[in-house]
């Protein structure tokens, strides 16, 4: 009985689903520190297009990424409804700009399907898997692979 419940517990995860340029993405809830309303950021010189800039989060300097831009869907039109999701990646915090946060879904790990074979290497490296949320496909993303290429880019500059 005890073992069964543990197995169940370890399998079930909660995801936060959000929209990026009309597409549904999601992220494990444990990675998320907080969700904030969009406010203008300070431009970071010489940064790649997907880095919008930096913002002040209670005295800490946090870089903000535009997910739509990262996937090559053009810049997110920044407006008041947009939100910034502050997430923990390794030992640092980053923010990602998304159109809106839609819901929190509880799913079983087994529901996540392996990413189907797709052409774009960048996209493939970031999408951990896909799953169906109320008949709509949601893409589970991995933040490490978003930050890493950008971080290396910037160090090369």
């Amino acid at each position, binding site marked *: 009985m005890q073992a069964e419940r543990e197995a169940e517990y370890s399998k079930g995860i909660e995801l936060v689903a959000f929209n990026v340029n009309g597409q549904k993405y999601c992220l494990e809830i444990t990675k998320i520190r907080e969700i904030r309303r969009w406010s203008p950021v*300070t431009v970071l010189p*010489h940064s790649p297009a997907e880095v919008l800039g*930096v913002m002040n989060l209670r005295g*800490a*300097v946090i870089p903000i990424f535009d997910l739509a831009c990262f996937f090559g869907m053009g810049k997110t039109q920044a407006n008041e409804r947009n939100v910034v999701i502050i997430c923990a990646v390794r030992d*640092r915090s980053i923010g990602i700009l998304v159109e809106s946060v839609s819901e929190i879904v509880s799913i079983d790990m087994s529901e996540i399907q392996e990413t189907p074979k797709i052409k774009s290497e960048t996209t493939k490296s970031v999408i951990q898997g896909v799953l169906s949320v109320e008949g709509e496909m949601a893409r589970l993303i991995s933040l490490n692979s978003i930050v890493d290429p950008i971080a290396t880019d910037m160090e090369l500059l």
Partner: protein
Amino acid sequence: MSGNSIRDTFFEECEELLEALDEGLTSISEGQNDNETVNAVFRAVHSIKGGAGAFALDDLVEFAHKFETVFDEVRSDRLVIDDVLMALLFRASDHLTDLVEAARSDEPTDADVRRGILTELIKYIPSEEDEAAEMDAIDFQPTGLDFSMDLPGDDAEQPTYLIEFKPHRTLYEHGHEPLFLFRCLAELGDLKAQLNTDALPLFETFDPEESYLEWRLELATDEDEAKIRSIFEFVDGLCALEISEKAGDPAASAQEALTNAINIDDADLAPVETDFEVESVLDPSEPSPEPEKVIPVKAQKVAKPAGPSPTLRVDLDRVDRLINTVGELIINQAMLTQRMSEIEGIDLREVESELEDYKILARDIQEGVMAIRAQPVKPLFQRMARIVREAAAATSKKVKLETIGENTEVDKTVIERLADPLTHMIRNAVDHGIEVSEKRVETGKSDFGTITLKAAHRSGNVNIEIRDDGAGLNREKIYEIALKKGLIKEDAELTDNEIDNLLFLPGFSTASEVSNLSGRGVGMDVVKNAVAALGGRVSISSVPGEGTTFMIVLPLTLAVMDGMVISVAGQTMVAPISSIVESIRPEKGAVERMGTRERLLSIRGNYVPIIEVAEHLGLMNADTNDRSEVLLLVETEQSGQCALAVDAIHDQRQVVVKSLSSACGNVPGVSAATILGDGKIAMIIDTESITQSLVANKAASPKMTNLEEVQNAS
């Protein structure tokens, strides 16, 4: 963890002791050969030895012991310090520093060096004295039983712990020594020990390697049980240990101590007791070997102005947290002021005066907190004394170091990061600057070369000067080398100062052959970059035949700086005021075009290149035809004067520097970020790297362009 903390404390104390040792030796070498100074040196070495013994740092103990014995000879007037011995003592002191450093990082040291110095030291030690000292390597003066009897009041206030300690055979096999543990315990409080020899078998069945002895210790201390346990951490599993708090009355325990001492006498057979008997009651307040001598010396020290002031050890993390919070306070204060100025229609005059007070208070707090991080440059300068000694020995030159203003305080990080550039410059000064004695005498100088290291506060900056009285820079040679290495054009006419500054160009090294000392492929450009990374500048001046002076100008602290708030391409940014010479709103005719893109500013008859900050930062295309602009005239070592074009200047204020690199990596043209009054982040531009783009952009003869600019500017 807690076991390490004692170790850490020991090493921290070692730093102070080594400092005292160095200071003492320096005084002696300057002829201040009195008893007090010699005693101070002796005590420093002795304390290091004592502490090292507790941590079983055998190399350190052995070395410190010999060192100390030599000093004992000096102290008892059986040995007179001459030049040879003085040099040896300095070397021994340097090696002792190495040993402590090595013990701290658990790295092996050069055993040959140690043996060499030891052999020389032993020559000064009479042989019988040597052996006698060897016998009781830890020579603590007995303080007698009555001490604990005199202070029953202390006992009453402190909880007493009962410690049952029975070492297993393995404890001795691992080379542990109960005495050292007991000494650690004695440092915590009043320790009484009782030896239990019940388990000692008859001689026929006695196994010399077995452990038969048990101790019953009573420790009156304010420390908690965990602290006591931490002392036994190293022998964990090698002994049977029971610690309990004792509620009994202190008078009885004092009585007990008396009987204990008698008991111990019975146990002379055991291997440890000869020393232990002496220490059975150790008063923690006077662990010094000669308490009766310490007191008068201390009293004298108070009268000396240079005496150490009482200090508090604080974890650096805590200070940094405090500094961060104070930074937030300053930002918050700026925000409040800004909000207030935006409110209209209400009479705020009274509130404004309160706000002004708030501003002053916040500034005071900040300055106070910054002062915590500030430390005197003395230890740094002392390290340099060693560098001079070593460099002088390596080049067989006679050099002495003079230090001025060693109590000048600078931010801790600045001091740490200044060590390498200073080392490099000092080595250079000895290697290239100071001439050999014969040559010095020929030119009518004293045979001893002097390097002066001077620190002083000047208008919010710290100036550090490195001056040698050597031959001065060989400008012809510098010019020749620069020409050979393609750093300048053949027909370039350079002023003396410009030639001197060639030293700072990357890839320049005057040493025709790579010597052991300096010229390992790193040149003065490394020094310059290290200083620039600290927000400082380095300059050079030299008089042939009289010497060379390097001047390093550094900001007092790295956490806060004075900045000019500017806007660039719609973004608010901050330019460090230290780099700005003046700000100019150019008149129509003052800006000349050169080709399609380059622009020059005519100022007081000179033409200075203009750099578009926005363009440099990749924020927009340079379209400067009809736009109001302000030029910031900046002065940099590498590129001379340049004018930075920005959109507007708003304000001048102190800003809290926030590192960007941890969050965003290195951003070209930006040194850090700060948070402004409105809570937004502003980039702090790196004027040095922006002006350097001038050098990098023009590929044809990069360094020459640079020098032409210098000429234009001056």
